[in-house]
């Protein structure tokens, strides 16, 4: 298992190298000149040229890439073109905030989605099943900013129970976690329902019931563990997406995370920040994939990695 783990981690290196080449090239191909953006509408061509030169953007793209890779080898992701802040420092400040929000959102999604999926599956085609599936449809269809603004209106403005914006305390986490977790809860509920319905049809479940095992034990000890494998896959993917930052939620709740940083960097053509953030997100996805694979082995003893 540890050899497998090491092999997976080593394979991550060419993956991340490929990602770096793609993002490095793509952002320089799209229209928009960061030097012109920095100079502003009123600046002269000469000022724009000087800015471009001082940022090293007039060098050939291959040379720029070589500098980029050399700096990464020293743990340096460069400096923001726009405010001069070190990219590692910016990401270092923002990623923990994004991680906190993502983990809280996944927790909300699991706490709502898994029980909802189980209830739907065990009361298949009943009004309970219909209720939760309609709720899931609503959860996946609702625009995040609409849900977020309404939650702020109700809980922060009208009831004054929770703060409207910010990230300082656990109270600040509740509304954005719920906003972000709603869509994930819907997806997890539907996946749990499908997986449970599949598992509940198996002979060993019928056998357990025939032996007189309590229904709650049938669900929790026999069926759920096997149904969780596809759910774990979905959770892993959802967590990866959330860790890449949820820009709409971050904008509505003024949560200064990686999502907002990345979108602002793209709009500003802040190349070092875009490159650094995308590499971080790619690394997260790679690591999460490994964690999900390890979780399979824990859930299903038949799965062994050599």
């Amino acid at each position, binding site marked *: 298992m540890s050899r497998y783990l090491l092999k997976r981690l080593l394979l991550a290196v060419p993956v991340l190298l490929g990602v770096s080449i793609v993002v490095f090239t793509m952002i320089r191909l799209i229209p928009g000149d960061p030097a012109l953006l*920095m100079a502003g509408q009123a600046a002269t061509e000469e000022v724009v040229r000087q800015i471009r030169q001082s940022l090293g953007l007039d060098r050939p793209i291959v040379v720029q890439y070589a500098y980029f890779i050399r700096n990464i080898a020293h743990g340096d992701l460069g400096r923001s073109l726009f405010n001069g802040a070190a990219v590692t420092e910016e990401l270092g400040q923002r990623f923990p905030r994004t991680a906190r929000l993502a983990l809280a959102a996944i927790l909300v999604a699991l706490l709502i989605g898994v029980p909802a999926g189980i209830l739907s599956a065990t009361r298949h085609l009943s009004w309970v099943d219909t209720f939760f599936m309609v709720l899931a449809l609503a959860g996946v269809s609702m625009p995040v900013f609409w849900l977020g603004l309404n939650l702020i209106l109700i809980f922060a403005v009208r009831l*004054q129970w929770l703060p409207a914006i910010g990230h300082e305390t656990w109270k600040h986490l509740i509304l954005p976690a719920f906003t972000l977790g709603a869509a994930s809860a819907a997806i997890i509920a539907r996946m749990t329902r499908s997986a449970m319905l599949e598992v509940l049809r198996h002979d060993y479940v019928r056998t357990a019931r025939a032996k007189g095992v309590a229904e709650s034990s049938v669900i929790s000890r026999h069926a759920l563990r096997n149904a969780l494998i596809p759910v774990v896959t979905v959770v892993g993917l959802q967590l990866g997406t959330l860790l890449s930052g949820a820009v709409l939620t971050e904008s509505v709740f003024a949560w200064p995370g990686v999502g907002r940083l990345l979108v602002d960097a793209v*709009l500003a053509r802040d190349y070092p920040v875009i490159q650094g953030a995308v590499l971080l997100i790619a690394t997260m996805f790679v690591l999460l994939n490994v964690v999900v694979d390890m979780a399979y082995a824990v859930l299903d003893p038949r799965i062994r990695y050599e």
Partner: protein
Amino acid sequence: MAVLKRLFPVLLAVTVAAILVLPSFAQQTGGTLIIGRGADSVTLSYYATAAPDSEVLAHIAETLFRLTPDGKIVPHLAESHSLSADGRTMTIKLRRGIRFTDGTPFDATAVKWNLDFFRNPANRIQFQFLVSEVTSVDVVDSNTVRISSGRAFVPLLAHLTHDFIGMHSPAAVERAGGMQAPVGMPYGRAPVGTGPYVLKEWVRGDRLVLERNPNYWGPNKPALDQIVWRVIPDDGARVLALESGQIQVAVRVPPRDTSRLVLNRDIRVDRTSSLRTIYMAFNNQRRPFTDARVRQAFNYAVNKRAIVQTILGGAARVSDAPIAPGIVGYAPVMTYAYDINKAKQLLTEAGFPQGLNVTIHHPSGRYVQDAAVAAAVQAQLRDAGINARLVTMEWATYLQVTNRPVEQTDIEMFMLGWGTVTGDADYGLYSLFHSSQWAPGGSSRFFYKNTQVDGLLDQARAITDPARRAATYKQAMGIIMQDAPWLFLHSESQITALRRDVQGLIVHPTERVLAYNARVGR
């Protein structure tokens, strides 16, 4: 003694009443003012380029002169100034006894250092052109500075009110490791000036905190303990944060929210005109817009008043000049009446009796309701037989696409805004309407050329008599409005919402929120 005994209860009652009543008349001091805005500052140095930078700098690094909200220029760090008869030399007397917050003296040497740094082309400061006419800055004595220009450049006084040319402590710049192009780091993270507030904390993308300077030199001592700017990118969330009481000021309130906010007794809505003019420019060197009759026809075909009332909720002012009121040199010149028949007549005279097709480029989300305004213009032009196709793109691409030289661009018509942040007509008119300022070398992306206007704008730069200068600008603007190089639209209003216990906040036409005289009531 007996008299005193009889009077004592009365005196006691009066004293107690005074204690209870008088504090409500006393100036409230202390407390924290939290302002919600959509974007963070980038750099607090000479490399600042936008309002989020300048409004913070206004509290830290003060300017020699200030532009009041009603358009007057008053001395601030300067005590007085005089101009030589030929307009080429400005002598400035500085106030005495002022120190930067790091203890170093604010004097003529410091002013010379600041102005020399700003105007040095090697430092590549984006707004260096504000003082590009200056040839030398000399120290006459410890509190007198002489600024010499190669030719008379009257706008210089207005330019010296610009927050981008605030006075920084030279010692602090050196201690910090310098102000390096292109963003002014590392100094730009922690500026030191003479202002009523000092930087306490700056968490990028989140909050910027100033705290009171207890040794402030000015007569209006800072009343607040802290001023906090919080970044809340979403307009709706910013308003909700204000309604919940989590912030006390929300800037750039959407027009659609004002009708709800005015009903809230805890909130006050402030509308202040902005110095930003929104327009749709024609490519004046490309047919059919080489013909003034076509350009005028477009102006007659669009109902600007309806756009202001319905799309902008009244939070704008139809343009009656190429620059907005409040700018030195502004004068109301003319508006184009909404007249479809006149528009069709002009198009017919110009050889387009069946109308014509045009492509209009516009940004989305850059200016207030920009996309909606463009759609309204498109709909109204249709009535005059003009079929407009709208093209939008995000700002970075838009800026690049509209910045091409005249021989390379295929843009026919495009929307932009211009904020005359110096408060002087020269910046609003010369930069855009002088034929030497065509993009990409200059700021004029619509390639207007009128030699009479060029001559008037050149003259106005050197006229020291304010009345004559104003008359020259009025004459130039009259020609520009007749020539119609733009579809003239409106100047924006800033809608700011405040909690009622906030007093003394200035919403400046230069799109800065200034809290140095603000108080929060208890």
